Each structure stands twice: as structure tokens, then as C-alpha cells.
């Protein structure tokens, strides 16, 4: 069964959304500035490790092993979380997960406000909107998520959800929407951070329920792991009486030894740090220390459906580091919102259409939202061959969708190109079309759909003689 991401229903196809983004000068400047900085730093951090490729291959092998034995490790995780005093819930899709969380929140304290750790899984399920419908106010405490929430915006990056905003836009937003922001708040980052800190502090101290995701779940001990930079996550994970964690089923790892590999790969890939400032690990509940009630919601939402595809399933190795976004030339220009999912960029282009299916306009367009340059595969810490998965999903799309009238063009061109004789005939016909070329052997304008080329680029005029015609003429068609 495929999943759903309710927040993103009705998004336009990628090329249409990207057209607007490409023309947005502020967005372009913000994204180029941010992605250039982070990819340069990442390259430096990765280059420090002599065994990077070994770590990468180890991580890939661990994840593949887990995915091949997912049932075993999930049951082990459930047993050990339960043994440690936690409660495990299973959610088939977004709606089930949201309902479980809302019921738990209401049972814990009958509504009100809950504090949230930055979590991709709950972005995926649209938890905030679902909680609001049940009268619960979720407060995002990750600085960038808070910016997105205050702006009634959508996240546009996995690690830095507000990457599309610059400090001037954030200052303006805080002055407009944060009631306790200082009246003379400037756009200086330390001032903005201080305002957010003061704003969040009262929430941390009063919240009865915390909601999180997890980067990893260790089956052997039933331990959950959250890796973060700000420390706000740790506040949410330790201060409230009740903690609810929504975690994708693919996040499970067999043992602590496996975890070690990922704790080396993730910070360098995502924030370009040797080690992230805060790593919080907990196993069930500990009397007198942290929450006294812990619930783990294990989320499928299209993951087992994805697991069925032998090529596509490698997307489930993803550890949400964002390295692929930061190096992607398409992401840098189109921005995250064009991907119509909390998972933007190259990984989103292969993950979203698998989790949700290929039927909506945006999902059908995502596998084609790439020039197949391969920069993403090169930096991926778990060696997801994103270009391979993209062309695989394109084939699945062609098999399952109409693709009218494109299909007839490809069928006809395939008929011509697979035959040397027909190709030669086509070349002779193309040579006759030289009269449309400009004086300098350039074609300035072609009819649709090739006008999409000549709108911004000249096309080469066909030569009077193809290579094979030249060869046949000068070498007598030998061999």
C-alpha cells in the first residue's frame, strides 16, 4: 500500500513549479549562497577521513541487510522498547499515525500545546495539521522549522527547512509573528537566535508532551537516537512527561556497532561537522530521569510498497543528510518547494513517487526532474545510485502511464534509430532541411515541442553530409 503526504496534495508538476522558482531572484540568491557554502564545507569534512569510501560501503551493506530482514529487526525493536518500559504502536499510513499521536496527546493531558523536535516523518504525515484539527497546538522548536511554521510556509530542505529564507526575511517574520520578540530586533543572526530562544524557553518549560522522530532505532537495546545541532531537540526529549516518537520502519539498525558507522557519516554529510553538538539516545523510560511515558509509533506509509521494487528500494537506505540536495544543480535552481514533498532534491525525486505512487502530476514528473549528472550519487553516504533509480522509475512511469503524445514520438524515433538504413534515410531528409538554418548554420527557431530548445538555445543546422555518408563516399563503404 502506498502512503500519503496530505500537506502536499494538489501540487503542480515539477517543471511548472520550477519555472516560477527559476524566476525568483531572492530565492535563487538565497539557495546559491546556502548550498555553495555547505557543499564546500562538506567536501572538506569528508576529505579528512581516509576511510570514507569504506564507511560508505559499510553503511550501504548494513542498511541493505536491515531492509532484507526488516521484519526480524522491527519485532526485536518492539520487544526491547517494550522491555525498557515504552509502548510500540504500528501505523500503516499517515492518517493512522496522526490518529495514534493525537489520541496519545489527548489522553496524556487533554489537548493544549505540544513541543516538537525537528522530524521528517511527521512532516511526511502532515501531523501538525492533523493535531490542529483535534484542538492541539504543535510548536516546532527547531529554529528553521519554527521559521517555516511562523511563516505558514512549507519546508524546502531536509536539514535546513527554511533555506529559502535569508536573515532579512526571517527578521521581518519574527517582528510580525513572534509576540514576545524584542521591539528593536535586527536582522543579525545572534539577535534572531536569541529571540527564538526566549520565545521557545517558556514552551519547553510548560509542555507536557514532546513529539519527535528519530534518526536511528537500535533493535538490540530498543534505543532511539536523535542527532541535532541546537539542543532544542534534547529539551523536547527530556523535559515533557510524555514523549511520542514517530519513526519510519526503515530507521532500525541491528546494534550499537552499526550505529557507530552512521554517527561517523551523518554529521560530515549533513552539516559538514566532525561530530554534531547533541546526540540524544534513550531506551524506554528511566524513573526520575526524563519522560515517564514513552510511545514509539512505527510508520509504514508506503515503505513496504517501496521495498517490493528491487532497484527503487535503495531509496530506503537514506539517512536524511541532505548532501544530495546541496550538490544538486537542479535543486539549487528550482528550490525545494517544486518537489511537492518534505523530501526535496534528488532523494525526494526517487522517494516521494515511491512512497506516494506515480499518479499525481507532481509525482509523475519527479523522476524526470534531473539531468542525471550523478553528483548526488557521488556524495551519498549510503551510496544510493540516484541516477539509476531515476531512470528505473522513468521506465515504471512509461509502463504505467499514457505519456501521450510523447510515446508515439519515442516509438517512431526508436523505429528509425535502431536501423542503420532508416537512420541513413532520416539523415538525408534532415540534410534537406538545411534551408531553415540561419546564415551561420544555426537554427534560431523550431516548432513545438522543440521550441522548448530554441526558446533559449540555437540549434545546429544539419550538415550537408552525415558521417556515414562521408565514410561510404570516401572509403567505399568498406567494412
Amino acid at each position, binding site marked *: 500500500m502506498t502512503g500519503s503526504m496530505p500537506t502536499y496534495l494538489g501540487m503542480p508538476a515539477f*517543471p511548472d513549479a520550477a519555472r516560477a522558482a527559476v524566476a525568483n531572484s531572492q530565492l535563487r540568491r538565497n539557495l546559491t549562497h546556502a548550498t555553495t557554502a555547505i557543499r564546500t564545507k562538506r567536501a572538506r569534512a569528508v576529505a579528512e577521513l581516509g576511510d570514507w569510501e569504506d564507511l560508505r560501503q559499510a553503511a550501504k551493506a548494513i542498511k541493505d541487510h536491515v531492509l532484507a530482514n526488516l521484519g526480524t529487526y522491527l519485532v526485536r525493536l518492539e520487544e526491547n522498547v517494550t522491555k525498557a518500559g515504552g509502548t510500540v504502536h504500528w501505523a500503516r499510513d499517515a492518517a493512522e499515525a496522526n490518529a495514534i499521536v493525537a489520541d496519545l496527546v489527548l489522553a496524556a493531558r487533554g489537548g493544549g500545546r505540544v513541543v516538537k523536535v525537528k522530524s521528517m516523518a511527521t512532516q511526511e504525515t502532515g501531523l501538525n495539521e492533523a493535531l490542529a484539527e483535534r484542538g492541539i497546538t504543535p510548536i516546532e522548536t527547531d529554529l528553521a522549522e519554527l521559521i517555516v511554521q511562523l511563516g505558514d510556509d512549507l519546508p524546502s530542505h531536509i536539514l535546513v527547512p527554511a533555506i529559502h529564507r535569508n536573515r532579512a526575511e526571517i527578521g521581518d517574520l519574527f517582528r510580525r509573528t513572534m509576540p514576545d520578540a524584542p521591539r528593536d530586533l535586527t536582522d543579525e543572526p545572534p539577535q534572531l537566535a536569541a529571540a527564538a530562544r526566549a520565545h521557545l524557553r517558556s514552551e519547553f518549560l510548560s509542555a507536557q508532551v514532546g513529539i519527535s522522530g528519530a534518526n536511528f532505532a537500535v533493535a538490540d537495546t530498543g534505543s532511539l537516537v536523535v542527532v541535532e545541532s541546537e539542543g532544542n531537540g534534547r529539551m523536547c526529549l527530556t523535559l515533557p512527561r510524555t514523549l511520542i516518537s514517530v519513526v519510519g520502519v526503515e530507521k532500525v539498525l541491528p546494534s550499537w556497532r552499526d550505529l557507530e558507522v552512521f554517527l561517523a557519516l551523518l554529521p560530515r554529510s549533513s552539516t559538514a561537522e566532525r561530530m554534531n553538538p547533541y546526540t540524544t539516545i534513550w531506551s524506554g523510560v528511566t524513573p526520575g530521569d526524563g519522560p515517564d511515558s514513552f510511545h514509539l509509533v512505527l510508520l509504514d506509509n508506503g515503505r513496504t510498497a517501496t521495498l517490493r521494487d528491487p532497484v527503487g528500494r535503495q531509496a530506503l537506505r537514506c539517512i536524511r543528510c541532505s548532501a544530495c540536495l546541496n550538490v544538486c544543480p537542479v535543486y539549487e535552481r528550482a528550490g525545494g518547494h517544486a518537489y511537492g514533498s518534505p523530501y526535496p532534491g534528488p532523494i525526494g525525486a526517487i522517494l516521494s513517487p515511491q512512497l506516494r505512487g506515480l499518479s499525481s502530476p507532481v509525482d509523475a514528473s519527479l523522476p524526470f526532474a534531473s539531468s542525471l549528472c550523478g*553528483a548526488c550519487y557521488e556524495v551519498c553516504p549510503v551510496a544510493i545510485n540516484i541516477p539509476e533509480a531515476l531512470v528505473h522509475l522513468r521506465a515504471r512511469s*512509461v509502463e504505467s502511464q499514457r505519456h501521450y503524445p510523447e510515446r508515439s514520438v519515442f516509438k517512431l524515433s526508436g523505429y528509425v534509430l535502431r536501423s542503420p538504413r532508416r537512420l541513413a534515410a532520416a539523415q538525408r531528409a534532415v540534410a534537406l532541411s538545411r534551408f531553415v538554418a540561419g546564415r551561420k548554420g544555426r537554427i534560431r527557431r523550431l516548432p513545438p515541442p522543440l521550441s522548448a530548445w530554441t526558446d533559449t538555445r540555437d540549434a545546429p543546422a544539419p550538415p550537408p553530409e552525415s558521417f*556515414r555518408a562521408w565514410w561510404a563516399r570516401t572509403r567505399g563503404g568498406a*567494412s
Partner: protein
Amino acid sequence: MRIGLFVTCLTDTLFPDTGKAVVTLLERLGHQVEFPMDQSCCGQMHFNSGYRREAAPMARGFAAAFAGFEAIVTPSASCAAMVREYHPVLAAHDPGLARDVAEVAPRVHDLATFLTSVLGVTDVDAYFPHRVTYHPTCHSLRMMHVGDAPLRLLRSVRGLELVDLPDAETCCGFGGTFAVKNADVSAAMCADKVAAIRATRAEVVCAGDNSCLMHIGGALSRMRTGVRTMHLAEILASGDGT
């Protein structure tokens, strides 16, 4: 060594001078080149667009046309990568074809690595007195792993002034049908590539794939930059008096 030239359908149809340059160059280095007339297209456009059923006969045709050659050289790193990486995928359900592909595919080389690794030459006795910058195409870099082979070849060309291209390893935005299906993002990527090329003040931008050069060259021409594109083979084939 029996060398077969896989010219690629794009170069065959639109850029025959590149094919002629490969022949000139290899003959100058003392090798005989054959052009099997049975060749057509490697099927990359169809494969990458999801039309595997249409691409499969092209993989079959390729294996048949180039059976028996010790080395197959092509002026496209991208098409070489298609044959090496994805023809086995297209042949996966056909044991006979899989055998033929396994025989032929590893013998396919892009021109630059064929010269430096197979023939072991970097100085091809070329003369090209111009200011040139080199764009490493994505598939040459990340699929064929050509490394600095093209740069070593260019540095050995007499008279050639080689200028580093800023952000050279960033994609130009061609991407096959991506250039048309996502024309806005493709054009935005190309604009940045053109800006980087302009910053070098080179007269010529050179690469190992005519597909990317067609895209970059189309933009350079549209903007009347006066910068021209040339395939690596054409520079390496240039000599005194040519």
C-alpha cells in the same frame, strides 16, 4: 589491434567533423580504424526517458555491429557509459544477448581514455594556437571516470593555452530530454555554465560529448558571445596546416 569507431547517432547526423577528426587522429597515430556500417544508436535517449522496450533492440544492434573488435572507440563518454553500464541491464532477461553484451561492452572506450590508457599516448602531435577551456561532462567524469586524461591531452597540444573553467564539474544542464522537459531549469543551469566560460575569456570551449556541447554552444551562439564549441577530437586532430 582491430579498432572500431562507434560514432554515435548524434555525431553521425549533426557533427560529422568530429567523426572525421577521430579517424584523422587515430590514423596519424598509426592505427587503422574501421567504421561498421551496421551501427546506429546506443539507445541512451530511449533508455533514460523510460522507453526500455524501444532501447533493447538498439543494444542488440550494437552488440552485433561491434562483435569481433578488440577496441571500440567513441567520441562520446556518455554513449560509452550507456553501453558499459546499461546495455547489461537491457540484456538482463535475454541470456544470449547478455553474453554478447558482456563480450562487447567492456571494450568500449571514450576517446580520451582510449588514447591515454589503451594506447598510452598523451602527446598526439597536435597544433592548436588558441585559448581553450575544458568542460568535463558529467558522464565522462562520474560514469567513465576519465579523470584528467582530457586535460593531459590538451596540455600536450602545441600552441594551446588551456584555462581552468570555474565550477567545471557542475552540470551544464543538458541532460538529454531534460533540456526540453525541464527547459527552464536546464536554461538556468546553462546560463551559469556560459558565465563560467565567459569568465575564462577563452575562444573555444571543449568537451568530450557533442550532446553537452550542442546545448552549451546553442546558448553561446544565441547570446552572440563569439565563443565557439569544439569536440576534444577536433582539437587533437588539428595539426600544422589543418
